């Protein structure tokens, strides 16, 4: 009898089942002195470890800069790099990192309601400041993503310069896309497609609970990570060179850095010994022997490219505008509105979780459609800007490649050099400094 009453009550209440927390059955009035247990939830864990991360970051950056620029020791840089891989990568699970912090920064600048954690600000800004001072020492020995690739780069092959330059543009595109999707609140692309975080989380470690993460990463990301590692055996640091969006920012800053690592501790005498030392194509050859190209042709080409830049900007902007609509479908609200619209117009039968979630809120459809339209508008503008950015990057790259620069010495390309120190041991002046002239190269 009691149960049939309950079922009757349930049947009567069924239509309003969407109402959340409906008090269908009143809290009993207990007579036996029973006390209702309170709702207890565990407190948030302490964030002291995060501040320790910032301290570790500062310390590692200072050490990396000292070891690369002053001590000039590839071996010491390698040891620090391995230590960073263990701490920031395997122990801390690769989160938070400077690369991902780009998105927190973009979201904080675009969305006033989002409070960016101080730790994320520190991870974003401190390596930038260090790069302005010392070049990309962050990439050399602090970044765990760089470290995992550097350690596996055992048989690096030379990538043709044209391909290297072309692929290098992808990083700027990725940077622009990551900023667009983070600022619109659609997704954190860099974290979602981080190829190495799944590998970091494979290794069970002692941090509270993280040991449980073994095999927790998605299989697709593990396969992607493995592909990068295998490719990295033969192509040194593929992610750093061609995809890393933070590396793209660092390239720009490193060009202007106050100090920078040098190949030789002394004067370069163009002995050519270091010419093939760099697996990243980051050693620039002197131009003295090559015949100077015809100035007139140079000028004509430059003029043509300068005319081409506005065309590239306009084309990029137009293409981006056109991509705004497909891009906006990455946003949850747009997906939801599309599904609800399809169901409303009878183009699909039945409902899905995503539309059920909307019906549960009991809001009018028009409100959802208006919200989605606003997001589409933001995407149209945002991806047009992304297109302009891509056009600008391509234009600047073409101009940069076409401008003739006189170089008298072998020197690192400040943009692409990651200050790893592999070239040091190839320089005879370095051998003289270390008094190992007769010895073998000591590069690990």
């Amino acid at each position: 009898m009691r149960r049939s009453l309950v079922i009757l009550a349930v049947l009567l209440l069924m239509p309003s089942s969407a109402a959340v927390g409906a008090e269908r059955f009143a809290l009993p009035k207990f007579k036996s002195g029973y006390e209702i247990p309170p709702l207890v939830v565990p407190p948030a864990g302490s964030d002291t470890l995060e501040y320790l991360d910032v301290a570790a970051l500062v310390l590692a950056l200072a050490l990396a800069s000292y070891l690369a620029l002053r001590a000039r020791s590839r071996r010491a840089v390698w040891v620090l790099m391995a230590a960073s891989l263990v701490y920031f990568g395997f122990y801390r699970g690769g989160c938070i990192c400077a690369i991902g912090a780009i998105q927190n920064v973009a979201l904080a600048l675009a969305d006033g309601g989002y409070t960016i954690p101080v730790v994320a600000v520190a991870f974003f800004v401190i390596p930038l400041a260090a790069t302005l001072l010392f070049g990309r020492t962050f990439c050399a020995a602090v970044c765990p993503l760089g470290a995992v690739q550097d350690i596996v780069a055992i048989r690096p092959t030379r990538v043709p310069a044209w391909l290297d330059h072309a692929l290098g543009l992808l990083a700027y595109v990725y940077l622009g896309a990551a900023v667009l999707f983070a600022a619109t609140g659609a997704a954190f692309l860099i974290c979602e497609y981080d190829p190495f975080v799944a590998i970091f989380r494979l290794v069970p470690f002692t941090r509270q609970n993280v040991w449980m993460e073994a095999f927790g990463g998605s299989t697709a990301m593990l396969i992607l990570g493995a592909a990068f590692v295998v490719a990295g055996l033969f192509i040194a640091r593929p992610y750093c060179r061609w995809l890393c969006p933070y590396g793209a920012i660092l390239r720009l800053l490193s060009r202007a850095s106050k100090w920078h690592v040098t190949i030789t501790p002394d004067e370069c005498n163009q002995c050519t010994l270091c010419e093939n030392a760099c697996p990243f194509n980051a050693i620039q050859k002197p131009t003295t022997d090559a015949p100077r190209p015809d100035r007139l042709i140079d000028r004509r080409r430059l003029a043509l490219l300068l005319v081409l830049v506005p065309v590239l900007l306009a084309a990029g902007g137009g293409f981006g505008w056109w991509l705004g609509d497909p891009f906006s479908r990455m946003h949850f609200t747009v997906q939801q509105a599309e599904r609800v619209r399809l169901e409303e117009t009878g183009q699909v039968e039945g409902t899905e979780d995503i539309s059920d979630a909307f019906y549960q809120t009991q809001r009018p459809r028009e409100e959802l459609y208006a919200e989605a339209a606003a997001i589409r508008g933001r995407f149209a503008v945002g991806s047009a800007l992304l297109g302009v950015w891509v056009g600008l990057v391509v234009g600047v790259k073409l101009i940069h490649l076409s401008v003739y620069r006189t170089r008298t010495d072998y020197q690192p390309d400040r943009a692409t050099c990651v200050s790893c120190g592999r070239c040091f041991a190839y320089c005879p002046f370095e051998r003289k400094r270390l008094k190992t002239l007769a010895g073998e190269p000591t590069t690990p």
Partner: protein
Amino acid sequence: MSKTSDADTKVTRRNLFRKGGLAAGTAVVAGTAAVLAAKGGTDGHVWQIDPAKCVQCGNCATYCVLDPSAVKCVHHCELCGYCDLCFGYFSPGFEPESGIETAPAESQLCPTGAITRRWVEGPHYEYTIDEDLCIGCGKCVLGCNNFGNGSLFLQVMHNRCVNCNECAIAEACPSDAFRRVPADHPYLLKGEDTPA
């Protein structure tokens, strides 16, 4: 070294560009840092599930980078009807004898047997969740929401959550129920005032 310092002091076009770039870069980085410092907070945000939006799809159990998931079911007893026939406890279609305290395993909705019940008085039973057994699948939450008071609901447990910058469950959530909440109010509990 001596050569580099010579080149640095000599005013060439290249050095001028570099110095200009350094000044501009410093200004941009310092400016960004200042703006972010003004927008930043020491606590930042953590992930949480809005129970009002949750549709109990089951993704919380499978998409978390932790195994078992950092999402667990919580039970707010003050919202509970203390029903004998609990739709969050029994499998659908099971007809319990009156007075049964522990249902046979195959008749329990929870796949891990994480919910236990205890007789209190009259037809009323108290339901408790063993957090260590709960995998966050939300089956009980679905039953309780559809036929009961909705006193069972899912929450991200902050003694477990590693607060990934991009939460894998949030990405997979079909109802946008995951959102970043201020770390000093890390839970969105039913029946309690929660910050917007």
